[in-house]
């Protein structure tokens, strides 16, 4: 198992947003986590990436414990993520956004930078190569020198994905990547995600509100409701699961 999360509990005030969730993700698959609004999806992804510290439970990535580590350590362990509400480095160029994540593979000292030594130039070249490769994977190669906050919305989402994969993580967490996209844009996004797995063999954990979107591309789906995992299986199993239909689809109809 690449990711093993056991018994994660996260409380806010008296309310348990996550109430003992287990999640095991093997290497190389696309795992989806779905659930209605308020089911704990975002809390789960924030706990995995270290934005929240879970109150109980353990999270292991490739055997290393993540609970209690600062987020940058977790990122260095090989976890990268995107955000539901986009968080780019707005004033940096598109390329520089991606370089920020890519540069940890080629550390240099301040002295190298100030004296512009060969080590610094080499590091910059490698960082740039990594960053360009990541941009090409999501199809943003031509926008490299634009300011990040000048990109249209859908491309900002793609840039977040490029930034995440530029860190060359073991696992990519996508937090509602299709939120706010049109159907065409969302379909293009799915293709990019599938491509990513094909080309760089990355493991993806996809948190989505839109069930239809994940059915097509996920290998496995876990369903959360009220902070608990109520089902897990292949897309076809999930579609037939009575608990899921009752909790998830039932409530969705009630909303509509």
């Amino acid at each position, binding site marked *: 198992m690449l990711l093993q999360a056991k018994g994660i509990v996260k409380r806010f005030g008296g309310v348990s947003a996550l109430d003992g969730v287990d999640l095991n993700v093997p290497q190389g698959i696309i795992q989806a986590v779905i659930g209605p609004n308020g089911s704990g999806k975002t809390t789960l992804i924030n706990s995995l990436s*270290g934005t929240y510290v879970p109150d109980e439970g353990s999270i292991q990535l490739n055997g290393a414990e993540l609970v209690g580590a600062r987020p940058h350590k977790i990122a260095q362990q090989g976890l*990268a*993520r995107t955000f539901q509400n986009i968080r780019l*480095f707005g*004033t940096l160029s598109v390329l520089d956004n991606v370089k*920020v994540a890519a540069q940890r593979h080629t550390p240099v000292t301040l002295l190298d*930078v100030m004296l512009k030594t060969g080590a*610094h130039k080499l590091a910059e070249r490698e*960082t740039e190569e990594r960053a360009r490769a990541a941009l090409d994977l999501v199809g943003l190669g031509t926008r490299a020198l634009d300011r990040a906050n000048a990109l249209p919305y859908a491309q900002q989402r793609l840039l977040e994905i490029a*930034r995440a994969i530029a860190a060359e993580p073991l696992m990519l967490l996508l937090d509602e990547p299709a939120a706010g996209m049109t159907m065409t844009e969302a379909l293009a996004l799915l293709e990019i995600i599938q491509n990513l797995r094909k080309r760089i063999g990355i493991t993806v954990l996809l948190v989505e509100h839109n069930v239809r979107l994940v059915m097509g591309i996920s290998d496995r789906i876990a369903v959360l409701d009220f902070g608990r995992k109520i089902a897990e299986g292949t897309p076809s199993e999930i579609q037939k699961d009575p608990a899921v239909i009752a909790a998830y689809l039932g409530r969705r109809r009630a909303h509509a």
Partner: protein
Amino acid sequence: MKTKALILGLCACGIAIIPSLLGEGYLIQVLNLAILNAIVVLGLNFVTGFTGQINFGQAAFFGLGAYATGIATLAGAPWLAALFLSGLVAAIASLALGVPTLRLRSYYLAMTTIGFGEIVRLVLIHWEEVTGGTSGLRAIPPISAFGFRVESQMASYYVLVFALALAILFALRIRNSSFGRAMIATRDSEVAAELSGVNTIRVKVLALMIGAIYAGLAGCFFASTIHYISPDSFTNRQAVLLLTMLIIGGTGSIWGAVAGAIGLTMLPEAFRFLDQWYLVLYGSAVIAVISFAPGGLASAIPNVVTRLKAAR
């Protein structure tokens, strides 16, 4: 490429002949002060401009550097040793302030550095045996290294221009390196920077420290070119003026920081008739710039240029 070299060459010539136009005297001293302020504001730009943390301690770091050099060279230490000491003292002070506060929310650094500025002022005034109290230190020896002694204001000017050029060069290199990107990323989104593998606390402390070293080294040059220092030059009021220079010049812009510092050091000389009103205008200008052109003049000028070009 050719035009760029030509412009640089013309600038260099212009900078080289300024002193002979001004002559030895008061104006060249003001110009020297402006160059020193530019180095200090460039330092401030790392932590406030790039990293988005408010630092009111820059004048105090400047003062620590100046007093370190003043005390050391009056005691007979070689100038180069004093220069090193000035940078070191400022760096240590910045670590002592930054490490406990930069893991907290942004206003803690602001408050702590104001407090630090006040403590430095009180110590400079009351530790008379060492600092000379309110009357300060006089007859500080001039810059002397590698067999040269820089006695006149005119000669100091060339040394200071060289120091500023180095300060700009290093700032540009840091800006375009992994360090600069990490700083700006931390300012734009601390959460995303951290999750991209950037140790944001370390980046903030580093930015503060680089800035403090700039200020400390500039303090050394200040003491050994003006030859007289007193607590008045390093108060919190001065710290606020330094921030003002950065904001009006353009937070996050290296050339804006230099232009802001030089412009706002020279301008009060031209506007002496305004008397106390000039600080009122300063403050109002800051509010106006933040509200209408948060990027400062550095962003306003290119905007105007593009608009003019578009109009043609």
